[in-house]
């Protein structure tokens, strides 16, 4: 079937490299690994370019594969009996670049403590601004499961953040001169 939209690989890289990298970074908490995943995702896109039907399809496909490959990478690196967040703290220090939100770096560390399905759902919700239905399509999961993961993930994040954010709020207030 002929299609009107012609994929331009380089343009797709330009348009979506930040998205793919950020998804991988938030899932794994590791910049180097996230870049490796991003490269792999785009090379896989190149192999499947003939099956991409539109710009929106490309975006959907990239999100889906980025999350899937990130989950695979996490599984490969998982150490029996130790959660990923411990490994991250011990070996990678979550050294993220400074950003506009003073809570950004800490929140990502807290995110790393969540189970992968909840983490993936929250990332797609708050980074990509997807609805639960769109998240379900991206993760190939039932909508009810996604909603449950969002709810539980957010609840867990709030609870963990509450104990960690007091000092951050104090820092913020100090910076404001409060």
């Amino acid at each position: 079937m002929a299609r009107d939209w012609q994929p331009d690989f380089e343009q797709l890289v330009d348009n979506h490299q930040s998205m793919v990298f950020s998804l991988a970074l938030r899932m794994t908490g590791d910049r180097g690994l996230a870049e490796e995943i991003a490269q792999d995702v785009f090379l896989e896109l190149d192999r499947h370019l003939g099956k991409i039907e539109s710009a929106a399809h490309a975006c959907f496909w990239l999100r889906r594969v980025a999350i899937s490959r990130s989950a695979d990478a996490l599984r490969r690196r998982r150490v029996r009996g130790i959660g990923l967040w411990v490994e991250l703290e011990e070996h990678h220090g979550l050294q993220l670049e400074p950003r506009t939100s003073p809570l950004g770096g800490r929140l990502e560390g807290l995110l790393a403590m969540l189970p992968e399905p909840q983490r993936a759902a929250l990332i797609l919700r708050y980074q990509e601004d997807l609805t639960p239905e769109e998240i379900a399509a991206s993760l190939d999961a039932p909508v009810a499961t996604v909603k449950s993961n969002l709810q539980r993930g957010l609840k867990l994040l709030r609870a963990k953040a509450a104990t960690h954010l007091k000092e951050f709020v104090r820092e913020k207030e100090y910076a404001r001169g409060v």
Partner: protein
Amino acid sequence: MDEFERELRQAFARQPAPPGLKNRIMQRRRTASSRRSFPFFAWNGLAASFVSVSLCILAALAIYGGYEQRQAEQRRKAEDVRQQVLIALRITNRALNHMNHQLAAHGRARQESGDN
């Protein structure tokens, strides 16, 4: 959406891709590509003339600029090989990291069971 969720959204603004990521992707793509399309010559008089002229130009280039072309080609080939080396090293690194994790897990399991 409450304050926490708003801060969450702000905190999870997309990170810019690392500098040079696109170049590395494009390089790997070039290395991975194994398809070449070759010009198809339509053997009519005009095409034959075009080919003849092209060959003459190429011959001139070969005589006067061949060395630089070969050098550039060699550099490109060397870069392709380097990319293959990186692919091999990447796979090696993954395998070794997995090994490290297994060894670490094994060590911890032994400690817990009092074998050490």
